[in-house]
């Protein structure tokens, strides 16, 4: 039997919280618009921001109060939709998950589009090559035999086996942080491998061998140089490099 929590408790004084401080930041955004010029350049703004503000809030402040032409994708604004991956001070992050106070605000904050994908305008890149790689690994459950009347059974342990890679939001922060992907656009890239992993290690799936064969390709997992950029970049905390290693291991042993 579960224990009922107390009807009344003494709250600690800290619970009250405090006023949210404000501070000034310099935001520098890499601008590119082929309708205007073939050359990219930097624009810079001084902004007063709040302690709970994120880089996305700073970008919105620019767009809404200073220059409406600054262009970037965003939607959910709390790190689950994957729209606003960008390079922030040289690291791939989601703008909506990066608090300004966690950056060094004594220096300008540099915001650029993610690398390795063609830039369309300002921080917007062409995502099609990224989704093309994703589609190639057959990112859907393939099961042979009869469909059960009710659900397929899967133990909690079997479910845990691929839990980490189900968290992917396809933001491309990992793939576009990978030096191999920058130099070789044919490489599947970490995100596609993560999504292959999600099915290869799912006990309900019967197409693991096919996916392993696809990733055994010369543009597959063997291009990975384990630089760990992808794991550091993942805003969902997926251990990307570990997942790639597990796929490599599975190709060698043909055991999942």
């Amino acid at each position: 039997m579960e224990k009922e929590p107390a009807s009344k408790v003494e709250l600690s004084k800290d619970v009250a919280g405090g006023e949210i401080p404000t501070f000034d930041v310099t935001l520098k955004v890499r601008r590119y618009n082929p309708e205007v010029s073939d050359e990219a350049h930097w624009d810079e703004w001084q902004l007063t921001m709040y302690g709970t503000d994120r880089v996305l809030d700073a970008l919105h402040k620019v767009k809404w109060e200073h220059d409406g032409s600054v262009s970037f994708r965003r939607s959910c604004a709390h790190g689950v939709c994957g729209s606003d991956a960008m390079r922030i001070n040289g690291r791939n992050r989601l703008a909506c998950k990066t608090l300004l106070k966690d950056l060094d605000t004594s220096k300008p904050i540099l915001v650029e589009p993610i690398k390795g994908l063609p830039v369309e305008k300002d921080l917007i890149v062409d995502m099609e090559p990224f989704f093309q790689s994703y589609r190639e690994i057959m990112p859907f459950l393939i099961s042979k035999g009869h469909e059960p009347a009710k659900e397929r059974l899967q133990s909690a342990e079997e479910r845990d086996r691929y839990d980490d890679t189900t968290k992917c939001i396809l933001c491309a922060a990992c793939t576009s942080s990978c030096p191999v992907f920058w130099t070789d656009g044919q490489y599947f890239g970490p995100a596609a491998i993560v999504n292959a992993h999600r099915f290869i290690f799912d006990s309900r799936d019967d197409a693991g061998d096919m996916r392993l064969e696809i990733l055994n390709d010369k543009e597959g997992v063997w291009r990975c140089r384990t630089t760990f950029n992808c794991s550091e970049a993942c805003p969902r905390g997926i251990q990307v490099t570990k997942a790639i290693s597990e796929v490599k291991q599975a190709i060698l042993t043909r055991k999942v």
Partner: protein
Amino acid sequence: MQVHKYDVVIVGAGGAGMRAAIESGQRARTAVLTKLYPTRSHTGAAQGGMCAALANVEEDNWEWHTFDTVKGGDYLVDQDAAEVMAKEAIEAVLDLEKMGLPFNRTPEGRIDQRRFGGHTRDHGKAPVRRSCYAADRTGHMILQTLYQNCVKHNVEFYNEYYVLDLLMVDEQVIVDGETRIQKRVAGVVSYDLASGELHVFQAKSVVFASGGVGKVYKTTSNAHTLTGDGMGIAFRRGIPLEDMEFFQFHPTGLAGLGILLSEAARGEGAILRNSEGERFMERYAPTIKDLAPRDIVARSMANEVREGRGAGPNKDYVLLDLTHLEPAHIDAKLPDITEFARTYLGVEPYTEPVPVFPTAHYAMGGIPTNIEAEVLADNDTVVPGLYAAGEVACVSVHGSNRLGTNSLLDINVFGKRAGLAAAEYALTADFVEIPENPTLETEELLNRARSSEGGERVALIRKELQDIMDANVQVFRTEETLLEALRVIDTLEERYTRITVQDKGKRFNLDLLEAVELGFLLDMAKVMTAAALHRKESRGGHFREDYPERDDENFMTHSMAYKDPSATLTSGVRLETKPVIFTRYQPMERKY
């Protein structure tokens, strides 16, 4: 202008749109148009689960689920629709599992289930474990699984194609010997964000699945992109909107930010406390306490704050207490929301209570449909070829207050129904000729926004709109606050004619996009406020302090809002009513 031709066009690629596409795409030539990328849709932000009476962990049945849905909606639910949803819920969950959704599992390997607000055993006796879930990222898993299956079935997506108009033609039909004019679908007009070009899609069937309108409010769990476009397009084209006064405020948004913390937290045992450390829900809902439906919990929280028992420096929020739960349990069942608390508020939920306050979450109302997902042009006339499903639609399964998890269910059950019905219709119907000059209205709309040089800022008008909606059309409402809101909206609308869009380019002109979105927000705010003014009673998510009781005699009806410039007292919105469908349950007092 390019013209495309498809049997079925689906507008929106969230849960409802993609669930429809999976059915339709296997039967008829289908295109899905979305102003985002499919995986960015806000279905992915849903957390807690999807209810279905699988009875995997304790006794349950779909009739109890139906009853809870009807009672949760304060008896304004169409009971035939609730019955369909609760019955088909079971298959909907099993469909998703078969498509690959990684549900959490019981020790026997079956789909695990947990408690959720308002879901009870045997007509309200005690909370029941009915919500099927994948940690606290069930919506993410549903969105991903549906997208994966769209890839599997080669569904054609037009990403970042923003639909701006619905093309319909008037047809003469003879009904009971009488000649009547009836609307019929011809297609849609969309704006390609990448190129700035207009594309016309001719289609036999059009399915609207474009989501909600949460951005009329400042404090909201909704994405920036949820601006009521689908509802607005339909409304402008003469389709009524049903029950728009009912908007759900989710009790547990992160204070000041509105980011959602799932009700699953309370389902897993978390409780709400006021500044005195009191578990105040014991006073408001003695039987199911913190697991009362959202309208009741949100109102109770707002009331605690009003009566001076709010926490924090401004005493303007309450606290969600998880500190009595095991950290391992929190990590296993609620990993994402605890991370939100850490990331955005710097609060450690293992040891500190989390500041929370109601956040605008879900539109119960929308484009009226029947249980086949066919759109209605009035109380009973179907528009042949036009369908709607998900938050954009009003079936009505949520009545005046939606139960938690029933939206993920709604999109799956009625998304599937819409996809099937749209494909079936397309297989027998002929294309309707596209009207002459199909992009005329859309071009005018865009040109007005692009060429106006009045200097008003879109972002500022939007902020003022959101401020007045938060202040005057939130949990508590009165005639006075609503009239004031309408007055402000009218002035904002006038200023909206004088905006300046700074970006003059064609390529990814998101400045223009935001201007167009604001037009829809203004329209929808007006409809919501006018409908709230019209309903002089309190029911579910709509609480009128000047009419604090439910009034079944006068208001046990759906409201139907029509665009009508002659309705000058209510800003061009005319209100009519539509009967509620009853099958099994007679209205009772709603107590928990």
